[in-house]
């Protein structure tokens, strides 16, 4: 078990290196290939009509004239061992894990990320609970009542659900449920520690719209998996030896069906934790995704790399947890 976790952690570090390297390459190599000089690049990062001094400072600070691998090496070193920036007037100490400072606001990227994580975490976890419960139970019921009106209706809605983008359903529910019929309060993020009731009521709509989308997908997956499992020989064996239908379904069929669902759940949740970009944009919530989007729109490279790395970290951790959980759900996969 420990050897397995260590191996996975090493793999995770590798993945994070690949992700950061690719982000770096996107920002430095793609413009270079398109013929953008390091001066233009510095100008792009410095904002509108910068002074020559400011340009020189940015070039100096990020070593834009150095080869990209050297710049990347410096970035990784700062991440692991921390870094000290010399702004000319004072020295700023950036302890590990140093993600650098925003080009625009000169704020620490790590602080900004830490500031935004609770918002995204609230959105993603709340929706995940909903969609897992709704999606899996509807999928199982559909499979067990295959061909009935319930099954047909549920699968029809599910097919519609996977064809609806969240920025459509989200805006639609805002227009009607919140604005026109005033059934729900306006969407707004209030920290859980500050006021749990307002935290809950402000996030219901994002949760439900996001969960609807995923629940549709999970219902379809669960139904297909369940139908396949119910055809397996061991299910017939379980029935033949006289087990109650309830035991056959819950202990034998559901367990096997849940394993692949769990893998996908890990991926989906990890991806969402790294920034529920579309949800955040639709409901104007200031989470990680919105931070990344602002970073891209303002060519704020340190912010973008910071969020991308955080996102990759969430994906890796979520997958790791899922792999460990695997042993619990599926006794055939026990890590020894």
């Amino acid at each position, binding site marked *: 078990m420990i050897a397995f976790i260590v191996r996975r952690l090493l793999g995770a570090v590798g*993945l994070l290196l*690949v*992700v950061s390297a*690719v*982000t770096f390459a*996107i*920002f430095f190599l*793609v*413009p270079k290939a*398109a*013929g*953008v000089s390091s001066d233009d690049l510095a100008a792009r990062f410095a904002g509108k009509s910068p002074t020559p001094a400011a340009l020189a400072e940015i070039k100096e600070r990020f070593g834009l004239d150095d080869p990209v691998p050297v710049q990347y090496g410096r970035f990784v070193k700062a991440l692991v061992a921390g870094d000290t920036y010399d702004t000319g007037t004072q020295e700023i100490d950036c302890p590990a894990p140093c993600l650098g400072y925003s080009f625009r606001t000169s704020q620490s990227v790590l602080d900004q990320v830490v500031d935004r994580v609770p918002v995204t975490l609230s959105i993603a976890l709340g929706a995940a609970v909903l969609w897992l419960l709704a999606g899996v139970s509807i999928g199982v019921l559909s499979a067990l009542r295959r061909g009935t009106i319930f099954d047909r209706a549920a699968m029809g809605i599910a*097919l*519609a659900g*996977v*064809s*609806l*983008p969240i*920025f*459509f359903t989200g*805006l*639609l529910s*805002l*227009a*009607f449920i919140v*604005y*026109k019929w005033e059934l729900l309060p306006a969407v707004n993020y209030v920290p859980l520690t500050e006021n749990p009731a307002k935290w809950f009521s402000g996030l219901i709509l994002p949760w439900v719209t996001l969960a609807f989308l995923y629940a549709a997908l999970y219902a379809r997956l669960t139904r*297909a998996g369940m139908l396949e499992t119910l055809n397996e020989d061991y299910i017939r064996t379980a029935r033949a030896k006289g087990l109650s239908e309830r035991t056959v379904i819950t202990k034998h069929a559901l367990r096997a069906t849940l394993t692949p669902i769990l893998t996908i759940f890990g*991926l989906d949740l*990890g*991806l969402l934790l*790294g*920034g529920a*970009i*579309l949800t955040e*944009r*639709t409901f*104007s919530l200031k989470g990680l*995704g919105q931070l*990344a*989007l602002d970073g*891209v*729109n303002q*060519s704020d490279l340190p912010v*973008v790399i910071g*969020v*991308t790395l955080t*996102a*990759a970290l969430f*994906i*890796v951790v979520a*997958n790791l947890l899922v792999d460990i959980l695997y042993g619990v759900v599926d006794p055939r996969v026990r890590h020894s």
Partner: protein
Amino acid sequence: MTAPIEVSGPDVKAEPDAVLTGVERKAIQGRSLGQIAWLRLRRDKVALAGGAIVLLLIFITLPGVTETLVRWFGHPPNEYHQNLVDPTIGTPTGKFGGVSTDFLFGVEPINGRDLFSRVLHGARVSMLVGLLATLVSVVIGTVLGVIAGFFGGWVDTLIARTMDVFLAFPLLLFSIALVGVIPNEWGPLDGNNLRMAVLVFIIGFFNWPYIGRIIRGQTLSLREREFVDAARSLGARNSYIIFREILPNLVAPILVYATLLIPTNILFEAALSFLGVGINPPKPSWGGMLTSATSLYSVAPHFVIVPGLAIFVTVLAFNLFGDGLRDALDPRAR
């Protein structure tokens, strides 16, 4: 839903003689996979409806057709009609967002542009990017999937690992970062033409592992089949086996998953345009129209509904057709 092999066609009347002639005729007739699939698909009314909508969408986005339709039933996509909107709050003065015989889908708030014509022109962007991006995914996915599955060993390990990494990437974030740094001109392309090319490439490139995985798995199992052994024992080279023995057997899964990838890619394009990193205004795109709607949904809900429904109908049509195609080509899927 397994289809029984019919002994008589559906149009043959139940007269004894007709049945007999039917049996005689059909009994010696072999059916290709395509014929069997078509027979099954023909009975799936829902999938056929999806397919019909898809064909209609492709038709109305053809060069010239869009323009003609707009000329007949609408107004140029960037023509302002500010006399149709309320000058103080900017909402259309007509009922239901200004729907009339002159403006079939109503008018845009504030500028009063014709929504019918904007949705129609947006359809072209969506279909073009969706179809071409899928082509990119299918080509990369098939080539790498076949190579990985056929040759195995370290090549397979490398490609399979790459696919795992891709699937664990924050793709939307990457696409945003990548589209954000593209310059305004690159070779012969500029403006929105360049953006569309970049969107096709990025969306196609990031989605290939979904096809690649399936093709790899199929190739792995096909490689072990008897007919491949037979070809090899007759002295066939690898290239012959890949192109003449394996690829023809991959046509069905490629077709099914390509059909199901198109709606995903259309949603991807809409999402990028919604986030402001896709097609640039004033060129109409469905995602871009919804972006403008984010600040206007409370006063002009029809501005959300029109482009949103366009996305929904398109994606649903592809999904229905793709699901039907999968069931028709692979009866085990049900």
